[in-house]
């Protein structure tokens, strides 16, 4: 697993007369909300629509450091880890099998709350397959949990009155039975 220190790079020096479009360096540099600077391989960075659009739309030079103010460094580390693996496995024969194995390990290493944070990041960076994966992982986690647990996890307050709550329950009583009451 990479750390910010490994990915940190000095800002590239300008090398004489500016090159043509084909001479662009193959690395993209971003700065996270907590001030860390990351150097990404172009092929990995281009998996993120937000970054892709930023550079491609106005043909911005890769010399520019793109600010990712809504992303923390630990989150970007995880995103890079997933996208790098995805790009690596993409054209392989047992893509699905190997990806599944990687996904299982990836999820194991994270708490539900971190998964929620990553869903926000996946959405912000516009990485569809990563968002799909994270949302599925969260869904799998909460599917048999009861409402108290879900509120705790998502940081949401119960704003129903007692009456409203009971009414809502009676609409489909069969759906509210046999659920896990554990909070952790």
């Amino acid at each position, binding site marked *: 697993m990479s750390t910010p220190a490994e990915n940190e790079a000095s800002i590239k020096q300008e090398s004489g007369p500016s090159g043509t479009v084909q001479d662009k360096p193959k690395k993209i540099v971003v700065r996270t909300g907590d001030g860390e600077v990351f150097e990404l391989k172009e092929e990995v960075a281009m998996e993120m629509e937000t970054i892709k659009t930023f550079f491609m739309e106005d043909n911005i030079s890769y010399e520019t450091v793109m600010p990712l103010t*809504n*992303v*923390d460094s630990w*989150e970007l580390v995880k995103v890079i880890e997933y996208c790098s693996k995805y790009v690596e496995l993409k054209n392989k024969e047992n893509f699905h099998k190997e990806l599944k194995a990687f996904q299982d390990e990836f999820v194991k290493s994270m708490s539900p709350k971190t998964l*929620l*944070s990553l*869903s*926000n*990041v996946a*959405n*912000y960076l516009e990485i569809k397959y990563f*968002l*799909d994966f994270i*949302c*599925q992982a*969260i*869904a*799998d986690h*909460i*599917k*048999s949990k*009861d*409402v108290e647990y*879900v*509120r705790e996890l*998502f*940081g*949401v*307050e*119960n*704003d*129903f009155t007692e009456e*409203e*709550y009971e009414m*809502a*329950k009676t*609409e*489909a009583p*069969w*759906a*509210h039975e046999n*659920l896990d009451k554990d909070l952790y």
Partner: protein
Amino acid sequence: MSDYLPGGIILEILRRLPIKSVIHCCLVCRSWKSLIESSTHLRRKVQPNNQNEPYFLLLKPPSQSLNWSLWDLGEYITIENPYRHLTESVFPRNENKIIVNNFNVVGTCNGLVCFAFDFKYYGSTAVIWNPSIRKYVSLPWRRISNPKNGSVFNIASYAFGYDSRTKDYKVLRTVSDFGRETEVWSLARGTWKILRRPKDFPSRGDNVRYAFVNGAVHWVHHRRRDQKDDAIVDTSIVLFDMSTELYRETRMMPEDLRGKQCHISRYMESIGLFTGTVLESNKSSIDVCVMRDYGAVQSWTKLFTLPTYLEGTELEPFGFKKNGGEAVFKMSGTGERVITVDLKTKKVGEFAINDEYKYYDFLDCFAESLALLGHVKSF
């Protein structure tokens, strides 16, 4: 990132939950309940592989239970027989203690099932039921004035579909012999609206098959010489567009099937036709043809011919599996069962949930859905 999770992401998570969990999440807080109830039209993304419509809905003859089966994994779930509850909705006071054992299944659409019931002296009505969330909506009664002689049952025919423009479910009802009136009911409106049916358009008296494809209900329409002469003059595929609520005659009918009795069915995003041919005595066959490109009459292809040689059996087509891989038939007579034919290999197989459940009255592709959540009447 901040702790706040936008509604769009919450929905992406909820779409991947089993239905029971989604309904349970309505209890989280007011905004979640409102978010869920306003997004019931969203396609659910349930494993395996996010297939749309991985299930089959199977209805057994009356007084038996309803099953639905997750086709590929060979599992099935038995769901409560809704007939008793439907009877209560159709006859709320039920002073005459009428017991209704059999509703007609009109069709399924997006995980909803439509049943219809006609009874000459009481009128007719339909019910739309979502078996995944156990809720139903019953449509307003229609009185039939001046019922003519003849069959006491099934004098109206229905079709059930979805208007994707207004995200509304609609039921079309036509009654034979009563001028040129048709009616359309919509879930959003909650009432029947009378439409004018063009001259010479379907006025079927029984539940003739239809295919709901591309937002429209499609039928095979035989134009007969006149009221007295049954000879078929021409055949065409006509449609009723659920969005515009207009009838239209199309040019989609293949040349060589005109004049023949056909069963129409949905085939993937297009249409298929099953036609029976009587060969020599006691022998007949069924041709299975599909229009590969919807709307392109030259794309009609005959997939195969199924001989029906067995004495004393009748083969009736149910339709096609959603991905177009198999055609499904109901075999009645000696040894009732459901058989499938693989469209590539032509191999014939049998569909049975287990030894007990081999014969079904109705079978169609089906998907879990939250439609009707927030509407009244559940059981």
